[in-house]
């Protein structure tokens, strides 16, 4: 151990009374930071010095590089506390004794350190939410028992039916049988994960829409089937939609979204909640929408691969997407795209809701881009 560094005078409150004792504060360099020796002064000067181990010392924070406080209080743990008025003398003695300021302290006193940490933290957050959370969600979704996933999907559909958001289908039996045949064709070309039992269901209500439920159930609305018929787009367009929705089911997007939203709301709430709840909400929403758009791209990729394997054309589905958007942009009131509670557990349909310039505010990628990629069979990003 090297030489003790003589420090400033101070008052020692040892915790037994509120009366302070005058002391000289010496700092002793050590491997685990400096320790403190309190040498009694004045009337007590005959008494022996007390030594405080590094583990018991709580060093006071330097709150600012410019404004030194009028009095420093050093926490001595079970030995009470120490007050020092000569702040400059104290800092000099600390440096001489080999004390290194912590990262948090250097961030408080040096702008470059602060800005570097800010940059690192921005990158860390981006990486965590861009790659970390989706990866964890995918892994976790695979661990969920298939039976539990199926029951989650059944409950979601039951919830929609109970809330009268969906009603029994009014399509005729022929149409249903024809589409079921198509579904079988698409399904045959799909690699279904073990435990999932994909099936096709029809429902009235919820406008022009299609959605997949956790567990593999694909729901087409009467509105969508009629719209495809009216636009002169045959069952092949609907087969593409089925392949897209089956993609959601196969990739377990419903469950993954549930997990991703959970991590988002807890994580961003924790980090940004103190700054502003508004900011936390905006961050959660924007990131959630980004995840949703990536799920849509994944489902489109799935549709491309399956349709190619089944020997079916993809172009009709692209046309369907575009006519749907035109129908919505027209003077007719937009169909209710149901953001109901059950929808949180399902991956919603191919309905595009916003103009391209607002893509980051939308749950789906911009429709013209999607349609073009499908037509071109563009597997970039798959």
């Amino acid at each position, binding site marked *: 151990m090297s030489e003790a560094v003589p420090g400033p005078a101070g008052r020692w409150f040892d915790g037994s009374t509120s009366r*302070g004792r005058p002391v000289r504060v010496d700092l002793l360099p050590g491997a685990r930071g400096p320790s403190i020796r309190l040498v009694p002064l004045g009337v007590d000067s005959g008494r022996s010095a007390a030594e405080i181990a590094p583990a018991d010392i*709580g060093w006071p*924070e330097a709150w600012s590089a410019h404004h030194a406080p009028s*009095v420093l209080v050093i926490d001595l743990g079970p030995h009470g*506390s120490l007050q020092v008025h000569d702040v400059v003398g104290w800092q000099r003695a600390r440096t001489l004794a080999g004390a290194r300021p912590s990262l948090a302290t250097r961030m408080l006193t040096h702008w470059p350190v602060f800005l570097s940490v800010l940059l690192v933290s921005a990158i860390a957050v981006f990486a965590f939410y861009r790659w970390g959370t989706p990866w964890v969600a995918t892994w976790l979704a695979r661990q969920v028992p298939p039976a539990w996933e199926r029951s989650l999907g059944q409950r979601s559909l039951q919830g929609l039916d109970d809330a009268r958001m969906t009603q029994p289908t009014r399509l005729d039996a022929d149409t249903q049988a024809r589409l079921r045949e198509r579904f079988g064709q698409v399904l045959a070309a799909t690699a279904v994960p073990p435990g999932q039992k994909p099936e096709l269901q029809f429902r009235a209500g919820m406008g022009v829409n299609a959605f997949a439920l956790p567990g593999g159930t694909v729901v087409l609305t009467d509105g969508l089937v009629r719209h495809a018929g009216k636009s002169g787009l045959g069952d092949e367009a609907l087969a593409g939609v089925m392949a897209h929705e089956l993609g959601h089911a196969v990739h377990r997007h419903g469950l993954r979204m549930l997990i991703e939203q*959970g991590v988002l709301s807890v994580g961003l709430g924790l980090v940004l909640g103190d700054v502003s709840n508004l900011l936390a909400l905006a961050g959660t929403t924007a990131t959630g929408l980004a995840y949703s758009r990536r799920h849509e791209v994944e489902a489109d990729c799935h549709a491309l691969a399956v349709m190619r394997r089944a020997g079916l054309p993809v172009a009709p589905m692209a046309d369907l997407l575009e006519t749907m958007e035109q129908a919505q942009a027209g003077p007719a009131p937009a169909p209710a795209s149901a953001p109901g509670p059950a929808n949180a557990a399902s991956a919603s349909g191919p309905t595009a809701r916003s103009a391209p310039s607002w893509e980051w505010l939308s749950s789906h990628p911009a429709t013209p881009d999607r349609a073009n990629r499908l037509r071109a069979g563009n597997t970039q990003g798959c």
Partner: protein
Amino acid sequence: MRTAAASRLHALSIDPDDIPDAQPATGPRIDAFPIRFTGDGASYLRLWLVNTALRIVTLGFYTPFARRKTVQYFFGHTVVAGSPLEFVAPKKRMLFGFVMMVLLLISWKIAVESGQDTAASLFVLGGALLAPWAWGSAMRFRMTATRWRGVRMQFAATWGEVYRASWPIFLIALAWIAFVFAVDHAIPDTPPGSPPRMPVKPSWDALAFPLGALAVALLTSLFAGARLDYNYQALAVARCRVGNQAGRWKLRYADFVGLWLATVGVLLLGVAAALGVFFATGAAAVFGLRAGGPSTGGLAFVVLILLGLVVGGLLLVLSSAPARAYREARRFRMIWNQIGLSHIARCKCRLDVGRYVRLRLVNLVLTLITLGFYLPYARISEYRMRAESVTLFVKGGLHQLAGQLAREEQGLGDALADAAGLGLIT
């Protein structure tokens, strides 16, 4: 120091009955120590930014350290009789409490979102039963971690006292359970499977019962809430020990009932004003839309509804803000005017309630405009106004406090209380 304190008395124009200015011929002398706050917005903003950045890098695990630093900033700049307050909570305990809290929160979220109703209700029930324990252990933790001139504070209430003081919680819960049952009773059962029927015509007779139950539940919440507030505050002060001295509590339940009723009055005024503004702007907007002709319909209407939602939300926050600030200020003044430490110390508080409410409203608007980045300045200015309104009067000198060994507490209760919104600083 004594002459300085005495000369400050003139500036503060304190009631001469409370504090003899000159040394009286008989009896011990009394010194006045106005509490000073030496923090400032700029340096706290810096600390706040550093804390936020470090919390982000550590995915939130810096939170307990950030909390500790924040409390140390406020305490360390609160100067009582020349010595700042000290906050010396052990870091490990705060981290442990935080981790436990996060695990609880995540399992609760999963239980709720995956529809596991039994587990979720168990959480709620357990939370209610443990609420008094959480409050009590938060008080113990915080007081034990607070020192002045090396002498620890201590919360000496037993668990029996804490649970006995908590009876209003259970009364409020009972009142609301009764209300739910009353509503259940009033709505006729529909057999499962049959389509839900809208009640054809609600008769006043059928509505009277649930409405009565609602009124009872609201009134119970008001009076029992005031009682709980009173009980806890009384316990916190009377069972607080600083060294060998016990806290002194003189307020009555009636004082708290008066405060809560006045707060409800201010709240109703605020809501009425907000509703007035909301409907006036709404009517103006609708008229403007009509004048624009039918071509502007559709989209403009949607924008109008969105705007209405945003403005309505803001007004909701703004309309309750005066009531919250009013309650906080009056409660603070009431308590700090009466609080004392056995026979050696008394506090006087000269907080101007009107000024405090105005400060809070200005801060709220500035915080909203800056998307939250004014918050550090807002906190500093409010804390300063509260802290500097208090003067401590000490009889017989400051050296009579003797420390006592206090049992250290786990940090879980503190983390729970923090999650429930019981701030250490505010």
